């Protein structure tokens, strides 16, 4: 069992103590990280005792140890999934060769770029969510957001470890930059657009973790296929943590829907705003917004960058090894939806150039399944309403749909028509103001929940729902 040595300054299962130079580099970075956490982590929380899950090893019984912890004392460590013996590169030009334990010189800058982009998203979401604790709907939810935050922090550590261990001085500089950029900052924004959007309320937070963290899952899954073995092992372990974030989002929105349905049944009306709960059409608008903004994260539908990374064996497809093709795609076509002559239709392009789109499609299937489960909640109440994912071309800012205006059902319209109707498809200023108005003072009595959200079906780690998930000093 690869146990992490907690006596060391930075818990790890990578034999850090045997590499003095690397250890010193990370020990220099660590106080900068803690400074960043103090400035940009959850606001005003250093004395809270939070019932958190901490990884103490990468074995099944070791990576979920629960206990009350103060967040600045959380042991952010470096954990790689156990190596797979004799692992071979499973795709691209190097298919069948042994995986790399060091960075191949010709792919150095591409790999560094991939790792930096992934790493940049992790602190960004912590920054986006730092004020939400003040309006938490329950101790249970407060604990969940903090769990998400500390694990995003750990994911940053995971990427910084790779930068420090394998990319020398360039890597160390990138690692410092990861702490210097700020979500939404005009001068030094985070790299990707969705990570500069505000997360002003809990509905946005839950939508973000459900939809945008799911992009994270697919990106990590694609990097877990990498021929660069340390990256693969890092991402495999991160994926196991990412599942909790998706759960927080899916169950959070699900509980808001459940509450809306309860009040609809009790009050026999669809006009829920006077009851202080969030109505289903507003939830649909938030879904439209987060889905379209996150779609952009996958990049252009047809991309030679993605082709290069695949060809080089740096980033694979989702569940690459389970796909039944030649895993090289040199002569394979793939249908990508285009808007031609007034119609959306698939046009075959070389599959290598369509990898972004393919990953986006895999993600859409996964998002759709979660939306189906939300619809089951609505069906259980016997309410005739269905949440739907918008058309893939709706409200896009990146890729070949960015220059047309499209309704959620996929009808192409003029700019004037878009401007006239966009408030019925996306959250309007009024909608956002209403949702924010519900975010009142934090609900901190164990077992109590804000009016606009239902309690969860189960507590964390089999604890009761009214467990004291957060204690205040």
């Amino acid at each position, binding site marked *: 069992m690869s146990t992490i040595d907690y006596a060391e300054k930075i818990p790890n299962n990578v034999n850090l103590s045997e590499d003095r130079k690397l250890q010193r580099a990370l020990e220099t970075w660590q106080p900068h990280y803690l400074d960043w956490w103090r400035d940009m982590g959850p606001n005003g929380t250093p004395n809270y005792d939070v019932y958190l899950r901490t990884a103490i090893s990468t074995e*099944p*019984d070791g*990576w*979920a140890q629960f206990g009350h912890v103060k967040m600045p004392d959380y042991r952010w460590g470096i954990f790689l999934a156990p190596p797979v013996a004799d692992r071979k590169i499973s795709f691209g030009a190097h298919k069948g060769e042994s995986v790399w334990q060091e960075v191949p010189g010709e792919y150095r800058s591409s790999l560094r770029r991939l790792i930096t982009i992934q790493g940049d998203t992790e602190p960004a979401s912590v920054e986006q969510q730092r004020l939400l604790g003040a309006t938490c709907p329950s101790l249970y939810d407060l604990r969940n957001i903090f769990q998400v935050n500390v694990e995003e922090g750990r994911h940053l550590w995971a990427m910084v470890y790779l930068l420090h261990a394998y990319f020398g001085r360039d890597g160390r500089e990138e690692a410092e930059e990861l702490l210097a950029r700020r979500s939404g900052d005009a001068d030094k924004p985070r790299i990707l657009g969705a990570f500069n959007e505000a997360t002003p309320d809990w509905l946005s937070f839950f939508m973000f973790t459900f939809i945008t963290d799911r992009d994270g899952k697919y990106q990590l899954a694609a990097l877990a296929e990498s021929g660069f073995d340390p990256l693969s092992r890092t991402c495999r372990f991160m994926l*196991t943590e*990412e*599942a*909790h974030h*998706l*759960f927080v989002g*899916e*169950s959070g929105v699900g509980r808001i829907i459940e509450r809306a349905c309860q009040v609809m049944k009790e009050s026999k009306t669809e006009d829920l705003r006077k009851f202080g709960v969030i109505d289903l059409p507003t939830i649909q608008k938030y879904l439209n917004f987060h889905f379209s903004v996150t779609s952009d994260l996958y990049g252009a539908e047809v991309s030679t960058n993605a082709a290069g990374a695949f060809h080089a064996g740096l980033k694979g497809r989702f569940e690459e090894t389970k796909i039944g093709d030649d895993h090289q795609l040199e002569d394979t076509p793939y249908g990508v939806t285009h808007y031609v002559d007034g119609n959306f239709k698939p046009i075959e392009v070389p599959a290598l150039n369509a990898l972004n789109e393919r990953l986006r499609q895999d993600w859409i299937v*996964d998002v759709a*399944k*979660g939306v189906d*489960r939300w619809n*089951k909640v609505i069906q259980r109440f016997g309410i005739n309403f269905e949440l739907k994912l918008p058309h893939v071309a709706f409200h896009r800012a990146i890729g070949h749909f960015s220059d047309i205006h499209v309704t959620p059902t996929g009808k192409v319209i003029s700019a004037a028509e878009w401007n006239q109707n966009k408030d019925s498809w996306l959250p309007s200023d009024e909608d956002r103001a209403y949702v924010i108005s519900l975010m009142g003072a934090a609900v901190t009595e164990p077992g109590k929940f804000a009016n606009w959200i239902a309690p969860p*079906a*189960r*507590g*964390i*780690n*089999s604890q*009761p729902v009214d467990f004291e998930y957060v204690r205040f000093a």
Partner: protein
Amino acid sequence: MELKRQHLIDPVICIRCNTCEETCPVNAITHDDRNYVVDASICNNCRACVPPCPTGAIDSWLMSSRPWTLEEQFSWDDLPPEAKLEEGLESGPEPAEVTAIIDVATASTGGRVPPPFSAAHPYVNVYSRESPATARVAGNFRLTDPDAESDIHHVVLDFGIRPFPVLEGQSIGIIPPGVDDKGRPHNIRLYSVASPRDGERPHHNNLAVTVKRVRAKDDSGKLIEGIGSNYVCDLKKGDQVLVTGPFGDTFLMPNHPEANIVMICTGTGAAPFRGFTERRRRKAPDAAGKLLLFFGARTPGELPYCGPLMKLPPSLIDVNLAYSRVPGEPKQYVQDKMRERDTDLAALLKSEHSYIYICGLKGMEQGVEEALSDICRLHDLNWTEIRAQLRREGRYHVETY
């Protein structure tokens, strides 16, 4: 018909993250477009998948008379209803050695009384010495302070796939391995269950016992070490233990919400009352009936469950603690605390919904009865009559050892 506990995944809660399938060391978990499912013919209940599951959906265990097939599990929107325990279990006669122990425990106040009218029906001796259940130790924690003289342990036993139905106030029998100095198997040791009927943790097939290590010098100065208590206190997580029972068909809690429950105990005598209190907290925290606890120990550090007890809200339970060996403070016993609460106790004694339970060391019942008698005299009540009525109606229960 034999019931077995089957590991399943709750489709309402599962988010299809694939973590369990990835984690399972024996590849017992698979999925289709709809559900994640567990193959009962492969799953060995190792629980490696349980901590990593982000939702708790994986931690679902249902009794059934035959395993649910993968096809059935794939078709579910919800988990099916659980087979009733009664369908598979039968009580046996109380073994003579257990009867002897209970007779001694109830002797000083005149033997067993009927159970409260609203008590649930108990199972007794489902597992006998001849066919005991095997439990796995899920945890063993010392409850008393490191420097405290007494060494009291909280031991959680998990029964895995075997049903083991208990009620609060019942005991289980543990058979220490090996033989005595005459070469015979050891006698059964009885330990009160310290958890409520739905488990130390809800949805888990487990229970807790509270055990004090017996290690004392007798009059001749010879060290006496209790075989049963030392065996249980030394158990390690993962150890297998043979368990019989459950036992006890009268020292049970009333279930109706109006019931007032007066609980008087010392040391590990608190175990059944922890079960009573937790049952009330989980099922009827706003019940009209009062919970009143008188609990004695030598020092706070020797009072089992002191910390968690003090965190319970006063609206749930009225806690009165008596310490007999705190340096610089007068000795206090539970009967002293009871006398301080004479008005409240007298009021409760007048109510037909009041139940009194005494559990702890032999000898404590004398002081407690004297206190009750004094309180009655002070408030113009007749203790002898009340006591007889309480006993007749199953409202006065004593177990001391």
